């Protein structure tokens, strides 16, 4: 099982500017609520699936993906089973198993929306270095103090994860057992685990403040940035293609209404 986090690579999505991807993540999320036709949403989801497989053929083994995908599928079947409006398309003789046009449309619509949002989010997370996004946001005007809140949090997250693991092991080595639990014991375990983690986090924060202020952080209201890749023609082409794609979907969706 792999972590759901940025994975370096050279796919099309990797080469796009972080803000282009961020913008399209938001636009796609809005578009799937504008488009009502289930089969069109399924086309969008398929496109997302193709991109995902191109980025990482092992996508099935990324943490959380299986659960999210199966939830999307379950949504489809739940609507099929319990939404009985519209024409009957298939009737095996048992009321519950009959399929109606309303159930099919709703199932496709809601699971299509859900899966598309999941897929596009996965594409974004797997291909965008979060610190690149933070720097890109700072360059378009996000105050750098807030931008660096994100950067330092990203920096410390894996460190804290590792420390949590060490603390857990140190507890096992002292005979603390996690297998015999009741409510009082859970509270004690939480306290015994969180105290060292919190103390360690506070110490780290203290040292980080020293390190950042000692290197001039916060001394000036403005700040410059080193040369970093910016948007290219690829971003323009990608944006044009997606604009065209969503324009066609909107047209088809309207046509259907």
């Amino acid at each position, binding site marked *: 099982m792999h972590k759901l986090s940025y994975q370096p690579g050279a796919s099309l999505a990797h080469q796009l500017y972080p803000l282009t991807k961020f913008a399209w993540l938001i636009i796609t999320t809005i578009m799937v609520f504008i488009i009502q036709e289930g089969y069109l949403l399924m086309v969008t989801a398929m496109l997302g699936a193709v991109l995902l497989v191109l980025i990482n053929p092992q996508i099935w083994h990324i943490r959380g993906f299986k659960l999210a995908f199966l939830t999307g599928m379950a949504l489809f079947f739940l609507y099929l089973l319990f939404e009985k409006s519209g024409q009957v398309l298939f009737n095996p003789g048992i009321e519950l198993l009959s399929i109606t046009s309303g159930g099919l449309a709703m199932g496709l619509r809601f699971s299509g929306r859900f899966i598309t949002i999941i897929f596009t989010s996965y594409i974004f997370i797997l291909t965008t*270095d979060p*610190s690149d996004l933070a*720097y890109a946001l700072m360059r378009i005007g996000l105050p750098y103090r807030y931008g*660096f809140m994100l*950067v*330092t949090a*990203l*920096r410390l997250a*894996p*460190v804290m994860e590792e*420390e949590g693991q*060490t*603390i857990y*092991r*140190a*507890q*096992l*080595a*002292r*005979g*603390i*057992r996690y*297998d015999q639990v009741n409510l009082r014991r859970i509270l004690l375990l939480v306290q*015994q*685990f969180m*105290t*060292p983690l919190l*103390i*360690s986090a506070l*110490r*780290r924060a203290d*040292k*980080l403040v*020293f*390190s*950042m*202020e*000692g*290197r*001039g*952080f*916060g*001394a*000036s209201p*403005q*700040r*410059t*940035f*080193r*040369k970093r890749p910016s948007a290219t023609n690829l971003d323009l082409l990608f944006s044009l293609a997606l604009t065209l794609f969503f324009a066609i979907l909107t047209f088809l969706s309207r046509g259907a209404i």
Partner: protein
Amino acid sequence: MSLIKIDDFSYIYPGEQTPALLDINMTVDQGEFIVIAGASGSGKSTLGKALAGFLFQDEKPQYTGKILVNGTDLTQVPLFHASRRVAYAQQNPEDQFCTLSVLDEIAFALENTCLQPDEIEQRIDQALAVVKGLNLKDRLLATLSGGEKQKVAIASMLALSPDVLILDEPTSNLDPGATQHVFETLYSLRKQKDLTVIIIEHKLSQLMGLNPKLFVIDKGRIISETRLHEYLPQSDINITEMMLTQKQSYWSNHSLLDVSHLHVNINGREILHEINFNIYPGEFVAIMGPNGSGKSTLLQTLMGFHQPAHGNLLGFNNDLTKAKTSSLVKDIGFIFQNPDHQIFTQSVRDEAILTVKNLNLINDLMHEKVNEYMDEIGLYARLDDHPQRLSFGEKRRLNLIAAILHNPKLLLIDEFLIGQDMRNAHKWMRCLWEYTRDGHTILMVNHHAMLTQAYCDRVIFLDAGSVIVDAPVSSAFTTLEALGYRPFIPHKEEILAYA
């Protein structure tokens, strides 16, 4: 004219009564290579922080005197002004990184001072070239080794072109090979950039070859100012006597632990490869080797934290590859590197008896034993204090008592001596050595060759996950030297060089 001039400087930490620094007078010329040494708690780090202007940012700092660097009184300027003159690198580079990549880290200070992108680029290249780290340019910080991280930390300071570079124990987490490399890099900086370098350090042996100017601090005062070669510390520890002390051998045919054909993978990467050794009761074994050679993983595997990919681990009538950590606690005590990661309770007494309590071994005898031990290590008066209020050294003592109170046969220790001065290090090695005299066994990750030679029975030396040498101390270091691991063997001058 001198670059740094400290006049009658004294400083008291907020809420304290005794001064941390007292009547410090110090003059340093441009381009000098300085070492500040002293025992733990002597005030050497405080002096470093004072020199970097870090102590004067509180609302009402309590100090007298002046600290002049290139004519600027650092007690009077904001921290970011001070940082243009003096760069201060903290003990562990991990603690000072605030970004994720080498480029961003070195650019950080330059961006804060609003330099233009072209100049930032140029300065990054220059700083990396000085520390011979241009090959690290496109790397992520998380993928660097300890020595490489230290190089990036130094480069990120150099990028600002300070007059003075202060490093607080820059090699405390490094193996002797990487330590030597860092010291040489720093020494060459002085020549290349006419930079004044101040190192706060108690590992003096590896600085012998560079013969820096030495300031020794004790109880907040400078007690000695000399060249390292001329410095002979006053000591009450007779090391020669230590080395001659023989221990009754417990070696027998019945081994405590059998490790054979052990392979351990973590995240798909092989960390330990074909490890074979037996451990006998009463042995004091030093596990040595470069950073990243698999020493900690080896100890953790013995404690059941990693499942071996192949191989056998037999001990305490148990197949340890299948044993759960909880079933091993009775026989094995484990001390981790960082004291803060292994203190879980609200009082010193509770902390000491935690393992005994979890093993249901608590009785009146144990309570008496706690009192006795605590008295011995000078913590009896603090039994009801919160353990987080203890000093670093006191926490370390508590860690030790907490690990041995239930009398485990085997004690696994991951780097006990980090941050301890030599006097304390000797005391602890002596204490552990005595623990092995009555048949207890210790496996300890240790970088300190001289202490290993003086107190341990045997060395297991790992490199890149394989055992390179497994031999009694008497022959291990000769073999290591022949194999080219020179920084890892004890040096003659090491016996004299501690402060």
